[in-house]
């Protein structure tokens, strides 16, 4: 079915294809940026290079200066990590699900119930509120 590859080597070939795709895709971006850098005009002025703050002179800012933002974003990030990992666990189970019934069913239910415990907890903790 596959051209030029015995079944043994097929995955490797596919990964090579993947890398080629990735390189081409990134290459397009790089080429575009380079083209613009070469072709575009360069007439920078101080005002032009200032960060935009609705027309006022920018205060502070800059990378890594410890700008503060609502702690909520941290919470979302953490919740995401946790739930995403849960999802990652669920994928193999889902793929193998039909072969593993009935064990997998109880497994899945237990898993979802545990997940729900955490979900109810964050719900009650009002982590999911943005006000």
């Amino acid at each position, binding site marked *: 079915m596959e051209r030029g590859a015995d079944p043994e080597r097929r995955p490797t070939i596919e990964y090579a294809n993947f890398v080629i795709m990735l390189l081409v895709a990134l290459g397009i971006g790089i080429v575009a940026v380079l083209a613009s850098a070469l072709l575009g005009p360069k007439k920078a002025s101080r005002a032009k290079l200032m960060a935009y703050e609705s027309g006022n002179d920018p205060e502070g800012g800059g990378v890594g200066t*410890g700008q*503060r933002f609502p*702690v909520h974003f*941290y919470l979302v*990030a*953490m919740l995401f*990590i*946790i739930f*995403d*990992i849960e999802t*990652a*666990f669920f994928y*193999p189970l889902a793929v193998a699900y039909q072969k593993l019934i009935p064990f997998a069913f109880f497994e899945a239910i237990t898993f979802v119930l545990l997940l729900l415990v955490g979900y109810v907890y964050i719900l009650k903790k009002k982590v999911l509120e943005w006000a």
Partner: protein
Amino acid sequence: MVPTTSYLALSGILFALGMIGVLTRRTAIMVFLSVELMLNAANIALVAFARSWGDPTGQTAVFIVMTLAAAEVAIGLAIIVAIFRKRETTNVDDLAALKG
């Protein structure tokens, strides 16, 4: 087929880098990232060994380790953020209220 020793060498290098990071870095975040590096070194080793034994147990172990890493991230970041918001530093050396 890439020999197992190559994978091990890679994982060893990663682990050593992580170790060096833990020992020399002074920012909590960097120490923490180094720890993650070490965990991934362990993952590589596990997968490499799993392949050489032809046994999927090692791969499931990687799954567990990834979860652990995620849980560690969540809790570790929470602690680091809590400290950072209070005192604007995560330099481990600045934490000296409890001195030995």
